[in-house]
């Protein structure tokens, strides 16, 4: 019998009534040496009554829907999630590039991208020393966006020499040159998740710092992936401002964290249309949101 079934509740109720009636009938006979039976019978009736009420409350509230929910030991506290580092295909190569243990961090051109019409398609990536010293850490990410033709004099970085910009950055910095047009933003939106997976950094709560005339491009990139980006800042295209802007961007992002413990994602099965609690006035919902594991 299910814990929340009506049959169980009815049985418990009937048993309680039977016990009370039985006690009432037997009451006068339970005297002298049978008085302890009287006491026990009262306590049994009380217990049955309380249990019946508890079953009714549980049936209404659905607190313990099954016997196993009531009796089973607590589930495993949590299942450790796979470390981002463990699935990062590029990590061994990157480790090999820093024989000194990565005390200086690493700046490299990400090899996975390529866009025929872009003069500088490959993002430049900065990984701080923590990436190499604590391989389990999940690093936050800030993306610096400049126009493809930007120079050091116009607030961008000087070739691969981004060290002065990232000295105080406490996470991964991706330097991205974007050409004008939607294609460029689309390309970046597609490339950045690949980059994050291959390097093994955080996959959400990223920040964007757009430099000078790349502000609109940065905003477009932000809007193109609102599930990934959580903060946006723009900075004037003048030498010296970018480093401060990057540090500020990281202050608004989560810190580097160890891999979280997780529970499996909930099964999301199709549902019948949800009845609207009130007349609607908005556009119909067309696309469900992607879900993921914690």
């Amino acid at each position, binding site marked *: 019998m299910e814990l929340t079934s009506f049959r169980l509740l009815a049985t418990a109720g009937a048993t309680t009534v039977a016990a009370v009636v039985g006690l009432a009938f037997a009451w006068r006979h339970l005297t002298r040496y049978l008085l302890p039976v009287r006491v026990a019978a009262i306590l049994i009736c009380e217990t049955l009554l309380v249990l019946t009420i508890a079953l009714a409350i549980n049936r209404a509230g659905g607190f313990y829907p099954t016997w196993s929910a009531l009796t089973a030991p607590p589930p495993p506290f949590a299942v450790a999630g796979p470390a981002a580092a463990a699935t990062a295909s590029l990590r061994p190569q990157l480790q090999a590039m820093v024989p000194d243990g990565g005390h200086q961090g690493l700046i490299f051109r990400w090899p996975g991208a390529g866009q025929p019409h872009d003069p500088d398609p490959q993002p430049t990536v900065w990984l701080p020393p923590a990436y190499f010293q604590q391989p389990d850490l999940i690093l936050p990410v800030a993306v610096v966006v400049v126009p493809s033709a930007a120079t050091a004099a116009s607030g961008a970085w000087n070739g691969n020499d981004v060290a002065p910009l990232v000295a105080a950055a406490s996470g991964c910095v991706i330097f991205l040159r974007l050409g004008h047009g939607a294609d460029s933003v689309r390309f970046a939106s597609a490339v950045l998740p690949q980059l994050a997976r291959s390097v093994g950094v955080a996959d959400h709560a990223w920040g964007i710092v757009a430099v000078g005339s790349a502000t609109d491009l940065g905003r477009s990139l932000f809007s193109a992936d609102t599930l990934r980006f959580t903060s946006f800042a723009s900075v004037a295209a003048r030498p010296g401002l970018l480093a401060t802007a990057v540090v500020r961007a990281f202050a608004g992002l989560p810190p580097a964290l160890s891999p979280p413990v997780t529970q499996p994602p909930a099964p999301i099965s199709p549902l019948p249309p949800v009845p609207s609690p009130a007349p*609607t006035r908005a556009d119909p919902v067309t696309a469900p949101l992607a879900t993921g594991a*914690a």
Partner: protein
Amino acid sequence: MAPDSLAAVVLVVALTALVATGTALFWDSRARIDGRHRWRAWIVRPLAILLCLLSAGGAAIVIANRELGFFGTWPELVGMGPGVAASGLDTVTRSKTGSRVVGFTVAGAASRLTLRAFAYLPPGYDDDAAQGVRLPVLEMLDGFPGSPHVWLSTLDAPHILDNEIASGRMAPTVVVFPYQSTSGARDTECVDAVGGLAVDTFLTTDVPAAVATLFSVRTDGASWGLLGYSTGGYCAVNLAMRHPGRYAAAASLSGNMTPYTDPATGDLFHGDTNIANLNNPLWRLKNLKPEPLAIYLGAGLNDHDSIQDIQRFVALARPPLRVTTAAIAATGHTMAAWRAFQAPAYDWMSSWLARPAPAT
């Protein structure tokens, strides 16, 4: 003697047995002794039955409270308010790790509610090195019936927070446990009730103001989150969606996604459909522009109502709202579920909240 202590359980069980014994022994005595006063039996016997029922009911409540840990004080257990203390902080507990839980009173200027709250201060909060560092904040909301006592004692939140912070899975965070009602018997659903308590205002305006005054915390929305179980889960999601600039993330453990209306809540909206809709996360998803919030929804697989609400929420959610779902096996709508979800939810929350930062 706390109402959730073993001594309290022993006392009420002994009292119940005593009343039952008294009833059994003295039921016939008056009639036997003096036949002229048999009418007294018509008063004494119903009274004895009533006492039996009351003592049994009381024992059941105390045992259930010990098992589920809803309330930590007798006034709360009998439906009275949590009371208030003098201004300032009073240390409630201190752990071996160096974290501590302090109590304080929030005198709400905006809501006109004055209620107690507790705050978990992580290890190292008082260290010299931490001076000037402002921490992110997590507001914790309990279910109904319930109180901050559930988080602090039954669910052992301080211990789990210590573990997650020590392991580096969670950033040092000030975690606040406010009361959500002036009475243990009243379910406010954390809303600003029409003509009633302004609990939404209390939790989203007065509590943050008090916390910012008393503790070294960040005040920007990027570093504040909400987390609750059951009704508190609904509260967390609803309040975050209503105040997206105030909070960056919300986590609901077995939460409903529409406000309850039952004898415990009373009529919260007095027929004002507009206010009722604005406090309905599903309605908001369907009818309003989505906000850039991160939402965590977890439930036991056999907690069918909660799972169904998660499904409805996910079906309606659109970017920039970001939804993460999670499920565990047969735990029902119980403390076992919320115990198992705590660490994952804390870790998830910290991955969305802005980090501790130096004061500017």
